[in-house]
């Protein structure tokens, strides 16, 4: 019998996993455009093409792992790492006052606002909680 906490954790895993799979697929579709959007952050522009190649499939795999028993914590840990990176990036963009497109879900994701930062912090908190939570329901 699953506890309420287990059910909630599974719902969060499904939502967060789905979100990351969607974000990864949309970024894969936008291709070179995503590299330009990363470069626009003006953090490490020379790394932009490499990040644009590697990040989308990592997001998809981590999102899928989040709902596979035995891989859930690993998926959550991976997503936590990604979200730390994303949150730092969007926060520095806001603090520097740069107006760039987010690129969070491929092209036309809209500009980065403090709501983008708040959303990333919320997702980061959820992912961190899931990465600390046991993979299997208590017996």
């Amino acid at each position, binding site marked *: 019998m699953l506890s309420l906490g287990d059910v909630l954790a599974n719902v969060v895993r499904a939502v967060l996993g789905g979100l990351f799979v969607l974000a990864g697929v949309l970024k894969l579709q936008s291709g070179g455009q995503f590299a330009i959007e990363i470069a626009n952050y003006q953090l490490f522009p020379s790394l932009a093409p490499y990040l644009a190649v590697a990040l989308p*499939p990592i997001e998809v795999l981590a999102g899928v792992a989040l709902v596979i028993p035995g891989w859930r914590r690993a998926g959550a840990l991976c997503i936590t790492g990604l979200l730390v990176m994303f949150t730092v990036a969007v926060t520095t963009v806001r603090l520097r006052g740069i107006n760039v497109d987010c690129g969070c879900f491929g092209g036309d994701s809209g500009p980065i606002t403090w709501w983008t930062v708040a959303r990333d912090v919320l997702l980061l908190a959820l992912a961190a909680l899931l990465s600390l939570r046991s993979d299997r329901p208590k017996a």
Partner: protein
Amino acid sequence: MTHTMPRAMAIAVLGALVGVGFNAVRRDGIRPSSFAPPAVCDGESQKQAGLISPAEAASLCGRTDVLVADARTPARFAEGHVAGAVHLPCQGDADATVLALDRLRGHHTVIVYGDSTSEAQAVAASILRREPALDVRVLAGGFPAWSQAGQACASGPCESCEVTLPATSTAPLP
């Protein structure tokens, strides 16, 4: 869970490898060696663009190899701009930036202007860094000097700019 960290690393490594493989086979894949980040607005350049007076700039208007580019906000552009000028989307989405850079390449001379000389200088320097062969000039005194000199102006949004941000935002130039 001693397997968590190695498995998370495995996801990251496998994802990166899948990405490299997928990128290699797709026709529009990213080529890191030839990737040039858009740099219209970052102001990092050793080269300085020369100044051009409103009268001299006006004498170049109408030449097909000369492009006049507005480096101000979309809102300021809509309020009034040099007739025939294109808007450089310093705060716009990446699509618009790429489009603007493509436009610049087809010209011999690009005259950049802002609300002041200094506003346009950083943008002009960035264009020079990206397109060193271009003859990039900065309109001395910016748009105020142009309109005070009684040169041709137009108003209205830039139809091809597709700038996605609020019209009230301002562009901080580093």
